[in-house]
């Protein structure tokens, strides 16, 4: 095997070298674009380079290593040796992956080291930022094996030959999209093992199907199925978007006006077209052109903040965001860029011109670069909390950072031992900048603060989790009041929550309860599904859909939801179920017929029939592109076409006649 490895390294190093140079150039370009604005390994361009280059280089190396040795004479030269074909394959893989990792890791680490050196990037660097890139590099291994399969598997180029590469794309999508790192690693491990088995199977069988082992066949089937479903989904989506006419989207919603009345707004495609009160009388003021009416409604709508009453729970962040480095934008400072770093708990600043670290903010103020400090923001920083420029909101407190003057002002701190559970901001009145109001929930109590952090009012909510878990806090005028509108919890009530009335409670400026009313839920008609859309059931795999539906029906909420959907979209559901059933049954029959006509063994017939039923048309396509289809000849005895791969006619059991002799044969 050592000799094979040596041969492969020697043969392919120049391709790897070429790849490395290209990767290096692409990385240099991406970094040079991203570095001035403070981005490095996590820059979009750089990530794109990683995803593209790892997949292309991986696939190209795997493809090249196998395709050149697949030519007749060279194949014989390679595999006719007294070491098993398996060891030849392993030798190729060891050499290929060594080259691949060298070609990817060297430029990648060079880029990382460059980015880690001060003065290169106007932003912070942490080695954890290299994790997503490393995941991309690992994903390239899947492409490498997929490339090998593409080169070796005997299939038509215009048909299923490249499908395993499509399956590798799915792995990339998971690695990019999944939240926890172990999820990405798991996806790579599963896809890697699968494609490895497929590549090995194809290599050992010289690209043929029948001589492969069962594991290799099953893996090939799985990989091809993924490819077929992905391509099929793409085709369906494109077709839908091409043929489906744009639909109108009409719905009603409740709006609280500044005077404390609740009105019902009729919307068409997002634009308000009518306003009535709860009894259905049209609002007389809602007149004029579309833009005028929209402006009227906006002016009359009460200012409010919508926030959750559940205490904030930090969710696990995507491993791609690790360590948490978030760019912050502070008004009035365009010479520096600021980032909050969760590991140091400080807001770091970088000069955009020199790209050097300026210094960092903690709760106690600004500390210049080079000075040491232990001061840090505690708690966590929910991303969706601080939309206000200049405000820096953590669960431990609300701060106002003036990046230009390098000052930090504490606006609000919860009592010791408490933390901010929820936060929202009511936007200022137009043309009155300092009229914004902050809404903070601490220990289940709602605090309203003015823009300077001075408490306006403190209110224990009338309704609270688990029954009611969201609230809109609105400011009303004439007379000055505020309103809290509670929403029933989906988690608590299930699908019923949609139909429940929403209690609206008014409070006076001092917090005394003035009045309350239950606003009945608006029952919008669900968007009617087109019956033609049900036809897509013909091409969707029925098995997975049934599986998803089955799992959903195991939960109470799923059952409720299904019952509701079913009662309202009954025809659609019946149609799509029939379509799914039809496609499954037809595919089953097609597969069964194909299997019968090709005299497949019982087990294989059952397998293909089941796959037809579960996967629908994808199952048929899978069978077509996976199986070997031996030629057929007319049987001398029974006249029916018979397979050339069987000694005995599958219809009448007669063997093949030996080639006709004409008396000129010479045998001794």
């Amino acid at each position, binding site marked *: 095997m*050592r*000799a094979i490895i*040596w*041969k492969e390294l*020697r*043969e392919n190093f120049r391709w790897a070298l070429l790849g490395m140079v290209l990767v290096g150039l692409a990385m240099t370009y991406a970094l040079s674009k991203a570095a001035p604005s403070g981005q490095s390994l996590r820059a979009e361009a750089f990530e794109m380079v990683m995803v593209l280059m790892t997949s292309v280089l991986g696939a190209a190396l795997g493809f090249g290593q196998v395709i050149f040795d697949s*030519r*007749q*004479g*060279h*194949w*014989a*030269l390679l*595999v*006719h*040796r*007294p*070491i*098993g074909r398996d060891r030849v394959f392993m030798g190729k893989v060891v050499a290929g992956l060594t080259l691949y990792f060298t070609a990817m890791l060297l430029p990648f680490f060079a880029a990382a080291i460059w980015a880690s050196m001060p003065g290169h990037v106007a932003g912070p660097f942490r080695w954890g930022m290299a994790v997503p890139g490393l995941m991309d590099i690992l994903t390239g291994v899947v492409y490498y094996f997929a490339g090998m399969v593409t080169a070796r598997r005997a299939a038509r180029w215009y048909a299923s030959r490249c499908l395993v590469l499509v399956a590798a794309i799915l792995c990339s999508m998971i690695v990019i999209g999944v939240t926890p790192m172990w999820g990405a690693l798991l996806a790579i491990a599963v896809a890697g093992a699968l494609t490895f088995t497929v590549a090995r199977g194809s290599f050992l*069988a*010289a690209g*043929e199907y*029948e*001589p492969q082992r069962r594991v290799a066949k099953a893996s090939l089937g799985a990989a091809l199925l993924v490819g077929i479903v992905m391509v099929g989904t793409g085709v369906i989506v494109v077709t839908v978007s091409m043929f489906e006419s744009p639909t109108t989207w009409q719905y009603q919603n409740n709006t609280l006006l500044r005077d404390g009345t609740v009105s019902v707004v009729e919307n068409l495609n997002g634009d308000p077209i009518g306003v009535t009160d709860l009894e259905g009388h049209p609002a007389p003021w809602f007149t004029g052109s579309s833009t005028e009416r929209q402006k009227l409604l906006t002016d009359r709508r009460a200012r409010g903040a919508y926030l959750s009453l559940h205490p904030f729970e930090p969710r696990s962040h995507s491993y791609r965001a690790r360590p948490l480095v978030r760019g912050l934008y502070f008004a009035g400072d365009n010479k520096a860029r600021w980032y909050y770093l969760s590991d140091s708990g400080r807001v770091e600043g970088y000069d955009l011109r020199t790209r050097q670290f300026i210094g960092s903010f903690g709760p106690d103020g600004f500390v210049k670069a080079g000075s040491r400090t232990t001061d840090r923001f505690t708690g966590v920083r929910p991303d969706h909390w601080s939309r206000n420029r200049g405000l820096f909101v953590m669960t431990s407190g609300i701060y106002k950072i003036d990046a230009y003057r390098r000052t930090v002002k504490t606006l609000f701190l919860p009592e010791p031992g408490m933390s901010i559970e929820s936060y929202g901001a009511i936007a200022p009145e137009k043309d009155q900048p300092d009229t914004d109001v902050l809404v903070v929930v601490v220990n289940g109590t709602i605090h309203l603060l003015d823009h300077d952090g001075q408490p306006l009012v403190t209110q224990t909510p009338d309704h609270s989790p688990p029954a009611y878990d969201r609230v809109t806090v609105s400011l009303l005028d004439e007379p000055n009041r505020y309103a809290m509108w509670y929403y029933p919890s989906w988690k608590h009530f299930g699908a019923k929550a949609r139909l429940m009335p929403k209690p609206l409670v008014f409070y006076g400026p001092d917090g005394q309860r003035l009045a309350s009313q239950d606003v009945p839920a608006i029952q919008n008609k669900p968007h009617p599904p087109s019956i033609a859309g049900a036809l897509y059931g013909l091409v969707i795999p029925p098995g997975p859909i049934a599986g998803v539906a089955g799992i959903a029906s195991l939960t109470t909420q799923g059952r409720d939801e299904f019952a509701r959907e079913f009662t309202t979209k009954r025809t659609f559901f019946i149609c799509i179920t029939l379509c799914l059933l039809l496609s499954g049954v037809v595919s089953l029959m097609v597969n069964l017929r194909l299997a019968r006509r090709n005299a497949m063994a019982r087990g294989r017939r059952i397998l293909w029939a089941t796959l037809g039923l579960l996967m629908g048309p994808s199952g048929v396509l899978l069978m077509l592109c996976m199986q070997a289809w*031996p*030629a057929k000849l007319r049987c001398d005895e029974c006249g029916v076409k018979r397979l*050339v*791969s*069987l*000694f005995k006619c599958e219809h009448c059991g007669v063997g*093949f006649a*030996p*080639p006709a002799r*004409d*008396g*000129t*044969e*010479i*045998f*001794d």
Partner: protein
Amino acid sequence: MPQPVIETHKLTKYFGDKPALQDLSMAVPQGSVFGFLGRNGSGKTTTIRLMLGLLSPTRGSVTVLGHDSADLPDDIRARVGYMPESHPAYGWMKAREAGRFQRSFYPNWNDDLFNAVLDHFRITPNTKAKHLSRGMRAGLCLALTLAPEPELLVLDDPALGLDPVARHSFLESMVYVTRENNCTILFSSHLLSDVERVADRIAVMDHSVLRACCSVETFRNQVRQVLLRFEGDPPALTGLSGEPGGPGIPGVLHSVRMGNELKLTLVNANGEVDEAMKRIGATSIESVPMGLEEAFLAYLGDRGERTSFFDHVGAKS
């Protein structure tokens, strides 16, 4: 007869709808030099690739040294030397490196033999394979194939594209290899003179079907040429391959008519054939001596009646 080294059993291979090999059953006896003949595309290379397990058969099976080719164990492969068609080599390897590379796989390695073959073909060990001439590259392939001292040598058209000197060297090497008493050689070729020199058995493929498998002597004896003279014009022959009815002669490959003479090329002639010839009114029957090459051409050439070219010209004018 000793145990056959290669034995095929109803071996059949289809590429798509096209049969490349049909129901081949033959045996290569141990110690023989087996010439594998046939025109291009007649299925020789396919057969050889099936024998070495490089292809899997559509149906049927083949055993090599007693093992099914579909799954040849390493120790059997070590005993089989194979030189693929058109002498492939890794172009970037120097001859010496190629030797070192090959050597690492085989339990046996005769370095003297390797160097001797290189010498014979005048290959300097430091030349890269891609810079070698066609003949030299063939020599390198041969050296790589012979040095592990295989007991079965399978050569796929080794003489293809070689000049007479290189070809002669090849034949010498093949004769040299038979020095080991149990060494068997199977080689495919188009060159009859080579086959005549070194082969003791031949198999002839035609359109994916085995048409002959016998010793060279048998082949030579069974294919004959006779000259028949007639009083007037020779009668038209029907049923050249000897179908019953009509004035047919069994086993005629083709016939050439020249005036009142008829030249027949026959296979498997026997007393019955002589009688048939008399029956159609030949006044004299004369045997025409025939070389192996002619016999082979007659055997694989177009069958049927061929009038002489000059007659043809005459008929038109």
